[in-house]
């Protein structure tokens, strides 16, 4: 079978469902364009992307300064496109009756590297909680989720205690938390949505004073669920972006991202962001808007338009 074109996509496992859904829909109209979507994590994806092996890289965090450096030495230019939001759900077992909400500070107490081997009981986190052993479950260290969570809670990417159950496979975490009365875990909201019955969602207070917020479409999209909602991206190689079928694909992506994101359990970006992104794409605006900026709590519309 002769294809008109091939698009190689690789990278984040979080973005994967969305890209996959888009690719699937796109294929229905353009069966003659061959798209493959790999999963090698955000970092793994960038590595290939920056070697020029892939056309598009999925990323659940913005490109890092080190990666930018490589892109420059390799002469790879890219266009950054945010595609959706992902809220991170904090979950406990349904058997856990004592947790009503949790503050960011408490999360930090639980997860900071300093707590390693020391904070082993719920009581140590909040006095009113019982002396139940605290078992933590979280994303694998090579995922964008992990990077984002550590940055959002502990203030520094990849800074986390190591003595918890880390899995790249979120179902494993679902299973773990659901059966563990002392368990607490975090992972993408999509996984919670699919496993509501097995898990108990915990609202997060940004500070002791603010109100406890449950993650959902509106709280995430409107930046109320802070700091645990993050944008997700795709990066398009500039050379590839010049090919018409890639342009076709990106156009399709941005047109359908909103509905498909919802379908796969993510939160769509505001429509304006999609439009803006498409504009930036057609113009070929390269580079990252997050260079030297923290992503936590960032307002995409502002950032993107500022660049303009």
């Amino acid at each position, binding site marked *: *079978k002769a*294809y008109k074109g091939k698009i*190689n996509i*690789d990278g984040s496992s979080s973005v*994967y*469902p969305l*890209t*996959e*859904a888009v*690719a*699937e829909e796109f*294929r229905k109209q353009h069966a003659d364009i*061959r*798209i*493959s*979507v*790999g*999963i*090698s994590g955000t970092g*793994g994806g960038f590595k290939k992307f920056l070697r020029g*092996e892939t056309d598009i890289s999925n990323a659940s965090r913005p490109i890092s300064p080190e990666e930018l450096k490589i892109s420059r030495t390799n002469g790879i230019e890219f266009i950054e496109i945010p595609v959706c939001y992902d809220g991170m759900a904090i979950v406990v077992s349904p058997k856990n009756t004592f947790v009503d909400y949790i503050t960011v500070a408490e999360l930090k107490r639980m997860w900071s590297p300093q707590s390693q081997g020391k904070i082993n009981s719920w009581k140590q986190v909040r006095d009113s909680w019982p002396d139940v052993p605290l078992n933590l479950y979280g994303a694998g260290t090579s995922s964008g989720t992990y990077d984002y969570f550590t940055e959002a809670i502990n203030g520094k990417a990849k800074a986390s205690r190591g003595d918890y159950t880390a899995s*790249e*496979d*979120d*179902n*494993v975490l*679902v299973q773990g938390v659901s059966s563990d009365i002392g368990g607490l875990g975090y992972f*993408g909201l*999509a*996984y919670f*949505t*699919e*496993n509501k019955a097995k898990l108990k969602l915990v609202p997060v207070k940004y500070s002791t004073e603010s109100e406890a917020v449950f993650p959902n479409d509106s709280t995430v999209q409107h930046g109320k669920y802070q700091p645990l909602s993050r944008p997700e991206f795709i990066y398009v190689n500039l050379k590839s972006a010049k090919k018409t079928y890639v342009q076709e694909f990106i156009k399709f992506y941005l047109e359908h991202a909103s509905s498909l994101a919802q*379908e*796969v*359990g993510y939160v769509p970006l505001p429509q304006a962001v999609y439009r803006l992104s498409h504009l930036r794409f057609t113009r070929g605006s390269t580079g990252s808007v997050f260079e030297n900026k923290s992503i936590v709590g960032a307002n995409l519309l502002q950032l993107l338009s500022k660049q303009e």
Partner: protein
Amino acid sequence: MNRKHLISPKSQDKLFKIFAALCTGLVLLTLLVLLIDIGIKGIQRINWSFFTNLPSRHPEESGIYTALAGMVGLLFFTVIIALPIGILSGIYLQEYGKRNKLAKFIEINISNLAGVPSVIYGILGLQLFVRTAGFGNSILSGALTLALLIMPVIIVSTREAIKAVPDSLREASFGLGATKWQTVRRVVLPASFGGILTGIILSTSRAIGETAPLIVVGALAYVPFVPEGPMDQYTSLPIQIFNWTSRPQQGFVVNAAAGIIVLLLFTFILNGTAIYLRNRWYKKTAI
């Protein structure tokens, strides 16, 4: 002096029999539970479209077409690569270098390789084929990795099969003036063909089920097309299953179960063929 046994031999015998039957029963029960568990979960999804559909985000629409194609392609190349090398080295070790140092050294190597965990092969494949040779995440990388993985199995079973050919046949052949290679090709190989074939099939069925090394070489991907050459990307059934099981939607668990049924069928058919051939050939060439 009539020291009695602690438990009389007769009851010893009975007790053991009960215990052993229990063990056997439990293990078989486990198998049954496993199969039923999977069967119940997956059978609803087994239909024609499951085999012809491309992967999809909708579990009901998602099929194993590409995974199956990828698996067949992968196995094809694996076997193409591993077979001649495996069989030839099996022959060499058993027929030629029986006593020389090189053969001894190779033999130790092979017996070691047979026990090396498959992840380690994954690492080897990743470094050697994916990265150093630059084959990337292609069928070739996967096939080479799997080929190395099953080669020891092929070599060992080839040797076993050849070893089962009595020396008397070789002597008969030499006695008739045949050269070494003539003896190997016309007498030893035909006589051990059944055994070799069985070994190949069993090793292939092992290759089918391997997941870990493929994950390590990076085969986890959405590949909605049938690979057309060794350098194409691919996905394979166990990878697809693994992929599905890590999806949040329940529907994919059903898909995974259905995929497992297919995978099991594949392995059973291969194993069954191997058992059948083994019996048939034993009957025919029992010497």
